[in-house]
């Protein structure tokens, strides 16, 4: 059943299964009707059959539910007790006590509980205690078993093995990489996440090269996993901005926006003039985090002339964040002519960020200009003052 869940046949199965159950129910009624052959009226016979089948189903379901719940509650209680016991042993072991034999026995008898406590302990422990627990896993034989499970066809087992093994200081990356070829996408995704976080440069490179073809949410997850100082990441981003491929550039820009760390980028001018509005918007949004090989003021001036208002708005935002005072007059001029509230908002915030004369200009806009710019200027000034007041408090 679990394999079916992860297989490519599942979409078809999820349409067929409910109908199958209904057909089964119908057959049940037909079979029950045969038991009431003595009733001549056909309607009555089938009505009685319906009542019989439904009552039987009702009773089976109700009894099954209550019995199942009772068993589950007891099982959970017992499991909690076992978890507590193993947790206690782990606490003693990590403090240096000699209880390896008891732990090995627990690993043999209560494998699932042992692994659960082991996983939880590893998220809290550091240093030598953590290393002792890692060694314990290997000594109990569970480490080897998990590595073997990585090659299993059952996606559930592989996922569990990956989730546990990625906690190790040196996970068996060669074996985890093999999971990239698993038929279930969910396993491949888990392997990619682990490789991104813990893999060697070459493996990370392979995963990074798949980025543009991955769904957006998987990209978000991978962005969070790859270490900022990874050489593979640095090389990937440098290369990505050089390719003319919009999907690759967009993924790289998303990466920069996600990590919010300074990233060197060459040929920035080409990105600022990209035919794709999406690329230009994301480029100007990410500009505060990009160390470009060109004059930022020139790039911003170009962004302020962009035909798309969203790109102009992001440019104004970047100008405020980078505090490029030489463009203050240009920002003020554009603010006076702005028709799009979002763009006007970013221009006004940029003027406020530049302070000095431009703060004065912004104040003048509260009584001059059109209704929208007056309102936006007033709001930005108010917000700026309340934030200052909050900082003072």
């Amino acid at each position, binding site marked *: 059943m679990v394999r079916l869940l992860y297989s490519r046949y599942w979409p078809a199965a999820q349409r067929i299964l409910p109908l199958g159950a209904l057909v089964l129910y119908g057959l049940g009624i037909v079979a029950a009707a045969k038991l009431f052959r003595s009733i001549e009226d056909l309607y009555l016979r089938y009505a009685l059959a319906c009542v019989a089948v439904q009552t039987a189903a*009702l009773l089976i*379901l109700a009894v099954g539910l209550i019995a199942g719940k009772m068993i589950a509650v007891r099982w959970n209680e017992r499991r909690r007790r076992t978890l507590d016991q193993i947790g206690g042993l782990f606490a003693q072991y990590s403090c240096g006590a000699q209880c390896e034999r008891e732990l090995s026995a627990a690993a043999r008898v209560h494998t699932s509980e042992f692994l659960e406590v082991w996983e939880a302990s590893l998220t809290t422990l550091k240093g030598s205690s953590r290393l002792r627990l890692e060694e314990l896993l290997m000594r109990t034989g569970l480490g080897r078993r998990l590595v073997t499970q990585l090659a299993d066809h059952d996606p559930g087992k592989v996922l569990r093995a990956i989730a546990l093994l990625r906690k190790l200081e040196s996970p068996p990356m060669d074996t985890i990489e093999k999971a990239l070829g698993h038929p279930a996408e969910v396993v491949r995704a888990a392997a990619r996440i682990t490789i991104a976080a813990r893999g060697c440069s070459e493996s990370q490179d392979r995963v990074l090269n798949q980025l543009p073809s991955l769904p957006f949410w998987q990209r978000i997850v991978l962005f969070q996993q790859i270490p900022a100082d990874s050489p593979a990441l640095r090389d990937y981003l440098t290369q990505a901005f050089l390719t003319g491929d919009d999907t690759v550039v967009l993924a790289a820009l998303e990466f920069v926006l996600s990590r919010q760390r300074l990233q060197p980028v060459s040929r920035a001018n080409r990105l600022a003039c990209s035919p794709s509005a999406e690329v230009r918007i994301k480029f100007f949004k990410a500009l505060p985090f990009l160390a470009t090989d060109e004059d930022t003021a020139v790039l911003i001036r170009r962004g302020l002339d962009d035909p798309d208002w969203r790109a102009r708005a992001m440019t104004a935002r970047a100008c405020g964040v980078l505090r490029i005072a030489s463009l203050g007059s240009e920002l003020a001029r554009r603010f006076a002519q702005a028709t799009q509230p979002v763009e006007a908002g970013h221009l006004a915030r940029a003027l406020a960020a530049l302070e000095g004369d431009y703060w004065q200009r912004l104040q003048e806009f509260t009584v001059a200009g059109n209704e929208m710019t007056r309102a936006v200027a*007033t709001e930005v000034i108010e917000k700026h003052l*309340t934030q200052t007041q909050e900082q003072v408090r």
Partner: protein
Amino acid sequence: MKELLLSLLGWYETWVILYLFAISTIYMVLLLTGCVLLVHYRFFRRDPEVSRCLEFSALMPPISILAPAYDEAATVRQSVRAMLLLRYPEFEVVIINDGSKDDTLRLLIEEFHLYKSARFFDKGLTTGPIRAIYESIDPVPLVVIDKQNTGKADSLNAGINVARYPLVCCVDADSILEEDSLLRAARPFVEDPEHVIAAGGIVRVANGCEVAGGRVVRVGVPQSWIARFQVVEYLRAFLGGRVAFSMYNCLLVISGAFGLFSKAAIVAVGGYGTNTVGEDMELIVRLHHWARREKKDYRIVFEPEPVCWTEVPESLATLHRQRSRWQRGTIQTLWAHRGMIAHPGYGLLGLAAFPYYVLFEMFGPLVELTGYIVTFMGLALNLFNHNTALLFFLAAATYGILLSVASVILEELTLRRYPKVRDLVLLLIAGVLESLGFRQLLTIWRAQAFWHLFRNGQAWGAMERKGFG
């Protein structure tokens, strides 16, 4: 004459029974489909690592939470505090005080140190007059709109105008969102950003649960039977119907208590309709209508894991008002979009979902009620065989009970929110008793809605709140 009457009544009786079987069979298919989908969902959404990554990503689309409030003094502070503690990278809470007569606004001003703000907003949607906008002097993303009383739909439209973010989450101010509900509800927008325009979460009954600090800390079954029946009803509707309809992109309702929308899509269709009492359903149907007319590749989805807890009525009078309003909303919406019924241009939505809603949700109560009347008439006038009539209705009733019990089992198999055996036993009993009186009462009230529709205005309908905690 008697023979003609007998054959007419007999004919009608047979059709009513067939109708009841048909509706129950459809529910059964929906429940089974829901079950299959929920099992699949459990397996694919369990990686906490992914949730953690999404929680801290700057790429998650920011959300404006819109909560209209009318006389919510009992719960508003706690609800807002809980909303501000939600786990999501970037969001703002916009409370719309719809001319409350009680202390709602004063309490908010005092609790959250609000000041009258000069916040600018685009009046993209036409709304009633706004008296003032307040923001907090504290570093919390809270905006309060104070406006004249013009109804819930108009309040939401005002909130949409003021909202700054691309996604808007419409909730009831008295509801409690689970702390990861936004993350979970936003997941479809992240997984399929090009196509998803709306997503709804599950609404659960908060009566009987222990609430502390604006969070449900212990799930329990309500004390009153009226609320218990509603627990079963909600489970059946959300875990069965909505999951299955969502699979075929035919979801016609996202609860007004918890729905996440693309702001651009809502503005494109003109916001919430103010001339209906079922504004939540009407908006979804209008989004479908608009997207299909514009030939957009879109999706409106239901997510079973983001949970919103809400207090349900425990008095019959309040429940009567609520159900009457819901039914009137359904009738108004279906009538307003009647052009979609059985229209092949709208695909499965026009050919299956809409006819289902018209036949079973709109006219269902009328058919059921007349069925009861005809049966009683037939029995009183000795036109029917007592045993036959009883047997047929027993068959229909056990079918209904089976569905209720199945929905409780579905809950236990997939989401498992009720921890005790006693809770499940009570819900099972409620599932049985619900079909023996409560459902018939709701049928009468819903049938009355046809009559009320022509008389009543569009008031919010006062809900007696006990307040959580």
